[in-house]
């Protein structure tokens, strides 16, 4: 995962630094750019989510013969009807809240998403999903490119990553997205208090205001410092948010809680990034055990997303909220000898929100060896829907931008009408 240093230099960190506004101007800017209150929350399941355990083809006999210990029993799945070919599908039994949202018509699954010659590498795969460009995986992220289409200067809180490292998806040459894993910890310390503390803050601001064009890397770090100092106060308002529901204590639950606070406080953020890991289930995948690894992953996702959805609903903001979930690949069809699954190909995506047209998009694979829905000697599921078509739908119909420009090609697919 070469974090695009070269590109970032070539493309111009120096250019990026020009777009920065003075702190006093920022809240006005957030208001001005906040004409649409819509928020996009990207949920990344890191490690390669096992699509076949999340969205289960419970009438496919090969699902059971190829996964003798990992298959979810047909009697346990949460049935959600069939795809356009009539093949019945069910959710993992821990996804009870998501099934309710599905039943309300506000959750869409896009089956078999991916791209040709799917990478089985976490790093390359993640870079491809992040850049939406299998041909050049070191460039800016697709949402970074979206942020760059906004009128400059872009407010530093327009994007918000709830993980410490800036995800590649949000990387852009000219827009810096803050990483705020903990709103409570987002405060400035100083060795001296009182008036001496204000001198320190003034000193930090003076140092960070120096952006020499011949030192783009130094300038980049200084813009991070500027963005930190300029956003402290607004992020502070999020820390006092009192949600309408109890969020789970998991990292994912707390990340969604912060996102809800930022949306309700109206601090101007359009794009949020939340992430949870542990999906690289090579061994002891525990799909069916009460305390199994995968069962717990599904429980974590269900509880966190469910709480957030309910909170936004109670706040009257669910119609302005879209959650888009992805993972870097699906997993091998056959279980391995370690009761796990290795890296595979096509993945499953979810979209949910108050204006989502729910349902099952795309078709399920046939796991019968030799089926043309499979690849890699029938070991993996072949993609049906290019993941960029899902992105295009979100860019055009939710973010109100031009997907052809941002994705560098026409991936629009009108039948993918989930939003």
């Amino acid at each position, binding site marked *: 995962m070469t974090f695009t*240093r070269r590109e970032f230099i070539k493309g111009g960190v120096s250019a990026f630094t020009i777009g920065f506004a003075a702190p006093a101007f920022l809240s006005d800017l957030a208001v001005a750019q906040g004409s649409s209150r819509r928020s996009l929350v990207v949920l990344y399941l890191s490690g390669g989510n096992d699509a076949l355990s999340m969205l289960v083809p419970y009438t496919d006999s090969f699902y059971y013969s190829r996964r003798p210990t990992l298959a979810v029993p047909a009697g346990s799945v949460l049935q959600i009807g069939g795809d356009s070919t009539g093949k019945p599908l069910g959710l993992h039994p821990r996804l009870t809240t998501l099934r309710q949202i599905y039943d309300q018509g506000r959750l869409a699954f896009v089956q078999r998403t991916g791209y040709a010659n799917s990478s089985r*590498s976490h790093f390359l795969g993640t870079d491809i999903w992040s850049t939406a460009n299998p041909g050049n995986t070191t460039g800016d992220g697709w949402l970074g490119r979206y942020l760059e289409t906004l009128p400059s200067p872009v407010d530093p809180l327009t994007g918000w990553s709830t993980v410490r490292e800036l995800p590649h998806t949000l990387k852009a040459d000219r827009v810096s997205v803050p990483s705020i894993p903990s709103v409570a910890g987002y405060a400035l310390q100083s060795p001296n208090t009182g008036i001496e503390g204000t001198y320190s803050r003034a000193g*930090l601001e003076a140092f960070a205001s120096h952006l020499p064009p011949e030192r783009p890397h130094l300038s980049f770090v200084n813009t991070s410092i500027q963005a930190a100092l300029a956003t402290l106060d607004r992020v502070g308002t999020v820390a006092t948010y009192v949600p309408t529901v109890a969020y789970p204590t998991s990292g994912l639950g707390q990340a969604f809680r912060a996102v809800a606070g930022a949306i309700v406080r109206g601090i101007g953020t359009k794009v949020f990034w939340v992430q949870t890991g542990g999906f690289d289930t090579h061994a002891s995948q525990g799909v069916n055990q009460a305390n199994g690894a995968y069962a717990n992953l599904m429980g974590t996702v269900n509880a966190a997303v469910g709480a957030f959805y309910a909170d936004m609903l109670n706040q009257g903001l669910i119609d302005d909220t879209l959650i888009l979930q992805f993972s870097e690949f699906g997993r091998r069809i056959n279980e391995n000898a*370690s009761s796990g699954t290795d890296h595979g190909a096509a993945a499953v995506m979810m979209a949910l929100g108050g204006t989502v047209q729910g349902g099952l998009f795309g078709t399920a694979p046939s796991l019968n060896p030799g089926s043309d829905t499979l690849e890699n000697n029938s070991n993996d599921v072949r993609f049906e829907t290019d993941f960029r078509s899902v992105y295009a739908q979100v860019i055009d119909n939710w973010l109100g931008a031009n997907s052809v420009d941002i994705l560098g090609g026409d991936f629009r697919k009108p039948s993918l009408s989930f939003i």
Partner: protein
Amino acid sequence: MARMAPFVEHLFRRAAFGLSPVERDRFARGYSDRQIIDSLLVFDAGATDVDGAIGTPGHVGVTIGARFTPNTNINQARQRWLFRMVHSPAPLQERMALIWHHHFATAQSKIAGVYGGADSTRLLAAKPSEDPTGHRGQIELFRQYALGRFEDLLVEVAKDPAMLVWLDGRLNVKGTPQENFGRELMELFTVGVGFHTEEDVYAAARVFTGWNLRRTNRGDEAGTASYEFNYRAAQHETGPKEFSFAIYPSGPTPNRIPARSAADGLQDGLDLIHALAVHPETARRMARRLWTWFVSETAPPDEAFVASIARVYLDGGTQMRPVLRAVLTSPQFGDERNFHQRYSWPVEYAVRTLKEVGYLGFSVGDLLTPLLNMGQQLFEPPDVNGWALGPGWFSTSAMLSRMNFASQLATNQRVALRDAARAHAATPEALVDFVHDTLTLPDPPPPHYQAALDYVRAGGAWTGSDAQLLARSAGLFHLLAGSAEYQFL
């Protein structure tokens, strides 16, 4: 504080963890650059023992609690390693151990899920002389082979119990090969993406079938189970394995590992590791990685450098000491345009700050949470790819955490900083120069120099009184150690 020669300061930022007062004194005069490089390169990997100084006066503190058991307590293992980084007489050994920890990134949490917190710590950090079974933890392996032969290191890593858990080698058996280790051996440890195929991954998984570990519980007492590599011949796939590259360049079927009896099957893995270790792309990839670790992250690897380092690597039979000597004596390493062109990792930043700002009366135990907030936890790399390099470390929150650590340390060192600054208190300029020199910062651009002077003068005339010095010397160390410039090595 007298400045060292710019090259020496650069050498210590990159090949050590900054310059402590002890090192400044030692190399103050009479040594050529080449002698100083030699002093970093030549150490007895088995004999360097800095651990005996833990808890003694004159060193950074450790937070011990009831008992100091770094073999079984992961936070104490972290403290021990940080202590070594601050005080080791062989800092390049610790730096190489950190690089290998990154290269073969293994996270404690997964091993703890299998064998529990204490034994997972042993598997990563135990020092053989202190472990009940004499176990050599993975980090001790990296310290031992810090500048040894890379091929030997690969073999040791492939047999390392922590790695056998981390990349699931222990689950790799005949009939249903486990791909995790075979994939990363090629993608991350040796040739890299583009120089192996998906079929190679499947073949490599079969090569390592049967490479397992044996756990023997010697009684009920915790921490006494033994873990050792164990080749299980009955679980080895004996058939031939085809690769897209040569395993035996001069053999009749160069790309094929031949069918072997189960008893001889261990040789499959040794042959594959040898082929990968001496693969020209491994040499080039190693050279490119050394470029970013030691020379520059802001300039792409210099082709002449890559070719020359790759040649030293291959000609020396993958010995790393001559490779590092070639790196540190290369014209590119010594080129001043490459000074301050590496984004520091949190650990590098924090240890350098301790060595340059001060550590007496500070405990590395109080460094663990700041490091976590900056985004880095020893023994817990985010994934098998290790830690990223580059500007990704400088998100707003991570940068805020760095500035806050500079504040925390300056606050802790406030009295010592005042006392040290007394000799430089005559003018704001003298104080600013003193702090700059202590932190081995490059000459500041005029706006930075002015900003520092403005801070010292803020709120009234500078008198150099003890009260002013107490506030402003700590304040100035906070500003400068928290500045963008100081984030670069």
